[in-house]
């Protein structure tokens, strides 16, 4: 494995690290580009981007992790582009720096949301690894959260009070204890718009690995299919990692994530 520190593009305002296999990667293999998870710098939550990049290098896959302008070690852009447009341009600069014809964009949380927007703007994107990306609560998910709360609060009596159940479903349960879901407010489009975006991408041939952790927004394996019924199933693989938290705090869940991504990537030809 070879790792190189990069400053790019010409202005050298963006900082990244390229992780490459010792031998030149097979030309057909796409390179992976990791996008920031929220405000966390390029190493990712619990250093996940580093771990996965180094593991993928042993499988012959090159990865770049970098900081968007204004995040981590990267300087703010000087061209005055608004934040969303700047983030897309940054990601395109990163793809230029990797120099691969085909790229898989990967991101956790807001990184996944951004990956979709970049893919729409750039046909080099051949695949997406979306980790907790574009989460939309379906009715079944809301019911799941409400009943989970009831189980834990031991408030079985409330099950027989229909108004209480209705209220819980609207709210998704009583205010949760402070768990580090880290989600906060997400800049995601309305569900119908996200569905159109995913349909456009899959019809273009983009392959998607959508991974969801068990959290405040996602509750069951088929939630993706229920949220986006018109998206082509043959281009999307959904993995629901029940028991994993949003930032993969436990090692066992980090291992599950690494395996899931590796399996999906290594079948590419």
């Amino acid at each position, binding site marked *: 494995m070879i790792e190189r520190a990069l400053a790019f593009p010409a202005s050298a305002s963006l900082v990244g690290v390229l992780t490459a296999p010792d031998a030149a990667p097979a030309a057909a293999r796409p390179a992976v580009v990791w996008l920031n998870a929220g405000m966390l710098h390029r190493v990712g939550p619990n*250093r996940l981007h580093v771990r996965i990049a180094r593991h993928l290098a042993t499988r012959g896959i090159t990865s770049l992790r970098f900081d968007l302008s204004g995040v981590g070690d990267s300087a703010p852009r000087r061209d005055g582009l608004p934040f969303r447009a700047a983030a897309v341009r940054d990601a395109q600069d990163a793809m230029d720096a990797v120099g691969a014809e085909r790229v898989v964009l990967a991101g956790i949380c807001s990184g996944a949301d951004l990956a979709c927007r970049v893919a729409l703007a750039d046909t080099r994107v051949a695949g997406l690894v979306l980790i907790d990306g574009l989460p939309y609560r379906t009715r079944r998910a809301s019911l799941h959260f409400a009943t989970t709360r009831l189980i834990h609060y031991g408030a079985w009596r409330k099950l027989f009070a229909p108004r209480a159940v209705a209220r819980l479903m609207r709210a998704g349960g009583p205010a949760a204890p402070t*768990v580090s879901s880290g989600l906060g407010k997400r800049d995601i489009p309305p569900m119908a718009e996200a569905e159109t975006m995913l349909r456009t991408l899959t019809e273009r041939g983009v392959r998607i690995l959508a991974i969801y952790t068990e959290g405040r927004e996602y509750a069951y394996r088929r939630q993706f299919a229920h949220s986006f019924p018109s998206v082509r199933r043959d281009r999307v693989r959904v993995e629901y990692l029940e028991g994993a938290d949003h930032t993969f705090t436990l090692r*066992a869940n980090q291992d599950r994530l690494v395996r899931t991504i590796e399996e999906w990537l290594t079948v590419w030809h």
Partner: protein
Amino acid sequence: MRPAYFGLPGRELFGIYEAPAAGASDRGVVLCHPHGRDYAAAFRAFRVLSGRLAAAGLHVLRFDYAGTGDSWGDAEDGSVAQWTEDIVTAIDALHRAHGCGEIALVGLRLGAMLAALAGIECQRAARVVLWEPVVDGREYVADLQARHRAWLAAEARERRRAPALAQDDELLGSRMTAPMRRDLEARSLRALPKAPAPHVALVTQAADPAYDALAQHLRELGSAVAHARVTGATVWNTTPGMEQGLVPSEAIRAIVDAVGARR
């Protein structure tokens, strides 16, 4: 700002160098990150601190220890001895590349403890700044363990099934092997055998008697000690989220003052 790997082949450390704003200078400073959650939470504050120190006329190097960030190794490759050596490697790199004759070390939390140990090891630091230092390794580990348990309990309340039990060698997303834990538990800044530097600055928020005892101990070892008490945002011990963007301006000013002071 220049990112680069440095150190021995196969054991390269990732660093970011910032040049002094005023041009020629023979003074350098190595920034020593905290560990684990603290590292992520304080990352932005370190970047801002780095910029202010460069603006004050210093060569600045901040870097990742072995097994952390972008540097070589897995979590289990880290140890107090390894990280202390990493700081000395960073001092050497700054000295070689930019001819810095006068070196200062600035560390936050566990990074402060490591900076003090590295100061003793290399006997070359003119100043060491201990920012909210971990004074007692045993208390630090116990606090992390308590936070980890609280996190697991909160997780269990969110789920139908209890989360997979964590291995006992992991703490809030970081690996903490038994030897590493025992090593940390045996360390205390109040038991330092030598002065880490002729000048030591303590920059703290909490009014903790442990800091006063530490200042006293450092004076007895022969260091000139200045203690700046500051208020403002806490950039360590936070849960992941928006607070990672916080920049503790008063603490940063106190650190720049302490490092920038001419003897």
